[in-house]
């Protein structure tokens, strides 16, 4: 790379590092599973870097990245819509608008999650750690733990709901509406 490329590279990494969590949350709100979100996010990251030359330095990077992410989600939905059900354009727009308007709150919620995790009973905490460890397949985990697969899914669902409620409490304490 030339020195000028180095500078752009550093600039891109700085901006991407700063905004990647918000973009990921935005993408996650629009596709069904974590695996789907990771696939889309990979495409988003590549496009952002590839088109970074078109990005003006005074521009709002996050807004630009959200725009790219939304285009990628729609493309992903178009490709997957043939074999899987995906939300229609109107609901996707509603979710995208909500996620974009509440970016700061969602970031605060992710931060608050640590406190809530520490309040979980040990057994639930261990279950979350195990289920979300990279490379873990839920069916294999259920087998290893001796749970029916549906039962494990439901336990994790209840823990996630409890964590949402807990983070809402933390955010309320911090003055979020």
């Amino acid at each position, binding site marked *: 790379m030339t020195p000028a490329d180095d500078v752009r590279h550093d600039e*891109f990494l700085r901006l991407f590092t700063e905004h990647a969590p918000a973009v990921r949350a935005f993408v996650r709100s629009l596709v069904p599973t974590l695996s789907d979100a990771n696939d889309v996010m990979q495409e988003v990251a590549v496009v952002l870097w590839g088109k970074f030359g078109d990005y003006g330095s005074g521009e709002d990077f996050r807004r630009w990245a959200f725009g790219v992410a939304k285009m990628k989600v729609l493309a992903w939905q178009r490709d997957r819509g043939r074999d899987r059900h995906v939300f229609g354009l109107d609901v996707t727009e509603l979710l995208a608008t909500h996620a974009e308007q509440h970016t700061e709150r969602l970031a605060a919620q992710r931060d608050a999650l640590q406190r809530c995790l520490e309040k979980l009973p040990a057994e639930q905490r261990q279950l979350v750690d195990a289920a*979300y460890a990279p490379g873990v397949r839920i069916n294999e985990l259920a087998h290893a733990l001796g749970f029916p697969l549906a039962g494990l899914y439901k336990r994790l669902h209840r823990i996630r709901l409890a964590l949402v409620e807990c983070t809402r409490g933390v955010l309320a304490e911090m003055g979020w509406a």
Partner: protein
Amino acid sequence: MTPRALHLEWMRHYAEGTATPEIARQLESVLRDDPEFRALFVEYLNVDLALSSSAVLNPPTIVPVFSWRKLSVRFLPIAAAIALILGSTWLFPRAQVRLQRSVGAEFVSSFSSRELIGQSAELKAGLIELNFNQAEAVVVIEAPARFRIEDAKTLRLESGRVTAHVRDGRQGLRVLTPHTDVHDLGTRFAVEVREGQRSEVHVFDGKVETSAPGEASAPRDLLAANQARRFVAERGPEERDVRSGTFVQPEEIKALVAGMKAGQVGRALDAEASLKKDAALVGWVGFETQSGEAQMELGGAVIGARRVQGRFPGQQALEFVDRDDHARLDFNAVARELTLLTWVRLDRVPEGISSIYHTDNWNTPGQVHWMVLNNGQMRFAVFGSRVSDAPQRGEWPESREPLLGELGRWVHLAAVYEADRRQVSFYANGRLDSVVATTESLPAVLGPGQIGNWNRKPMGDASTRRFSGRMDEFIVLSRALNADEINHHFEAGTPYR
């Protein structure tokens, strides 16, 4: 099943990827019509995302491998960088604790900088700086210290002191001690453990929570900026004054590393050896273990204060914490010219005056008091001789520039008294601050006196002056060093570059 329970069940299926077309269609309808459920849906997925990211969970030992098939060679460098940032299902380990810098660090047994998580260590000299990337925290550990890195966000401190600086907006670092667990809420704080005695937590910015050690569900107490608390086994916590100067801050490390690389230790030792040959040397008080004997020769004794790491790794300073901590000494000298030199790290003293050196018999001519006032100015007083010129006529001589910017780091202070010239000169970090004319030509009398607590009142009396911080060297000469000599002493002795 209630409608809400049904909606939640649909949401679960959707997030698991097990929604049938019918479930997805019904869920879509609810999301279209119900803004509150839409908000819950987005937050639920956000929690799901956060749980999968490196930000909140303990790291796995398995490193997943990511396929780069989709990326062209052109994108590989940036893709590798992105992978580090994105976290899940990528090429690299998600959580690390990294040895970022060290300053003269020596360990009792081998310490591998490769696999820090799960490693216990005893640091006998120097400083190390660790980066807990998952908590986005930089932690400085100062010798002597015994610690263990429990996981990517947890440090167990058995003894010693650490300073933590957590990036704005982040939280999650934990420091576990024998007396309390400290949970960071996005802040800059420090912890000190005196083995077998007590732990202290000091908060400089932001907030932390403390809880009983080893009990995850124990109730927590909040500790806010500029608060400090001491925890002693079998006793309730005690409020303490914040000691900012006691702890080495992460931003200080860079200058200390540069100082070590520049060979400041050797220069300081050379300067010390040279000064000890000066015929006018009245007393050179160091605080190395063997130097304690030298203090005894000066009629000295250390009371309460304890030896800690000095401004160079492996060297010692004296630390004053509690109100009654002080060092007694008697230079047994009368001098018409006097130079006092010292290296100190000062905490901000709530009562307003940091007592550096006070002789005992104040109210008799020639007695010497040297201190730093709450406005950061030095005062050097020889009893009986006041400021002669306006606008401070009749006051005790004081320096001009406040030292407030120098609190919490090593600073070199000097005061030069010349009876015949009727003046006091003040120096900070080798630079002349001011020369103050005085009224009388009295010799300075250095009999019994003390560093730290000014003990004219009974021990524990709240009105006594105190010294809070560290002192590394206190030197007295019966001649007036000139500006070049003082600057040389500073330049040779500074640990920073």
